């Protein structure tokens, strides 16, 4: 069952890329193809990121475990689209002019924020294997909390890029606030239940179990 879910999600997550390749071959990228490709990859990075962040709330609300088992894949797709987004910017737009790129990063806050989000994603991608989860133990959870900050940076990156009409970035921001809000509400509730004990270790255990189970099921 979970294997079928995983294969389905894997194929679905590739559609945005396949669509871009199809449009590129069919001359369908519009008047400003470079902008189209960069924006599209950026949008899908953000969508993947929010979907990754939606898995824990989904588990909490629906009381099912499969969301956690596809969470890593979605996280890695976030990194995958972030890499493509950055590559499209550096290659198609800047022609790998490293001086221009570094100036752009230093001088322009929205670029800096986006680039920081990308840098923060790297350690998360590297430590996504089961071996690393085991090796890092308790610290794995702490490290991977960086995804909340990455989410905020990614939305800010989009927000600061927009000229005037902030409706779309606002929509992403609201989804992010909602997804983080569920976590906070849940934590408050479980803290109240446990009393003075912090609930974090409990969460770690279950997440670790799921993460390991994730590997046993494999893709």
């Amino acid at each position, binding site marked *: 069952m979970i294997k079928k879910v995983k294969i389905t999600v894997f194929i679905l997550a590739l*559609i*945005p890329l396949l*669509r871009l390749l199809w449009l*590129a071959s069919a001359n369908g*990228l*519009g*008047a*400003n*193809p*470079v*902008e189209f*490709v960069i924006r*599209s990859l950026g*949008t*899908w990075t953000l969508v993947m990121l929010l979907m990754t962040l939606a898995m824990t709330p989904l588990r909490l609300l629906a009381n099912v475990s499969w969301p956690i088992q596809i969470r890593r894949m979605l996280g890695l797709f976030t990194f995958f689209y972030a890499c493509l987004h950055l590559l499209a910017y550096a290659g*198609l*737009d*800047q*022609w790998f002019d490293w001086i*221009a790129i570094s*100036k*752009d990063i230093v*001088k*322009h*806050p*929205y670029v800096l924020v986006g680039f920081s989000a990308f840098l923060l994603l790297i350690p998360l991608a590297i430590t996504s294997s089961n071996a690393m989860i085991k090796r890092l133990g308790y610290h794995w959870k702490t490290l991977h909390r960086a995804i909340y900050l990455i989410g905020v940076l990614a939305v800010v990156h989009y927000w*600061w*890029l927009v*000229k*005037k*009409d902030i*409706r*779309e970035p606002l*929509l992403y921001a609201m989804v992010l606030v909602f997804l983080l809000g569920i976590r906070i509400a849940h934590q408050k509730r479980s803290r109240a239940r446990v009393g003075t004990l912090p609930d974090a270790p409990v969460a770690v255990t279950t997440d670790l179990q799921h993460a390991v189970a994730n590997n046993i099921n494999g893709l």
Partner: protein
Amino acid sequence: MARPTIPHIPSSEITPRTVYDGRRDFLKAAGFGLVSGAAIMSGLLPSASHAAQITRQKIERFGKTPYGQEETLTLYEDVTTYNNFYEFGTGKSDPAANAGLLKPHPWTVSIEGQIKKPKTITIEELLRLAPLEERIYRMRCVEGWSMVIPWVGFPLAELIKWAEPTGNAKFVEFVTLNNPMMMPGQNLAVLDWPYTEGLRMDEAMHLLTLLAVGLYGEVLPNQNGAPVRLVVPWKYGFKGIKSIVKIRFTEQMPVSAWMKANSREYGFYSNVNPAVDHPRWSQATERRIGDGLFARRRKTLMFNGYAEQVGQLYTGMDLRKYF
């Protein structure tokens, strides 16, 4: 003298009132915000357009000029589908999709302020004010892309001479139509409607400054600012105000819609200047529409390459301060 014919829209092209109203109701019901909000998903799905079919109308007579003969024109399709015209939505393809609601005929432009006598001029009269000519200009958008467009129009100076401004007229202010029925983007306060722009008198009188009524030898498509718009090739594209209904001569420097929206990022002059960056992005280079996916950005030229003609307008001015 060339006498351009005014396009007569056949009655078959006019949207029946019931259909029009129905469309309005749909827009209201769906909520323009929601429609655009769905644009996030429209990344995947082609969006259904509620544009009325607009027939392309040739302009009968206009003179050729040497302006921009050496340039490669941006494709008609790109010029008419990749637009910033927030009155029809903030997406680049929104104007082409929604501008069918605009009725550029009948149309009058009122001329007021520091002039001998306030006047109104119909679009038909305006077209007979001076011989039409074609000029190929580069257009550089403040967002960092550019096009080459063969405009048809006449120098704004001709209209100003006809308007007879007084000695007090130091600036010219332009105002776009304010009508959310025809411009659904105005239902949303993205900018403080109506859109306004302004020029200093010497800029307005400069022979490069054009009142355009057409492009590619045809009547201006609605999404490009029908029936009459401003083209100031050495300034960022947003200075080229579209669908003008009012021209006012003033003593004080007018405040443009973009200055109102964000005075830190958009100044009155807004001359193309590769040395002065937008606070959020570089203006040193630009992407020429039509160059394709694997083309390098081009270097942006001072005053968009028109420095020889307009540089003297700004001698002694600190262009960093007066951006």
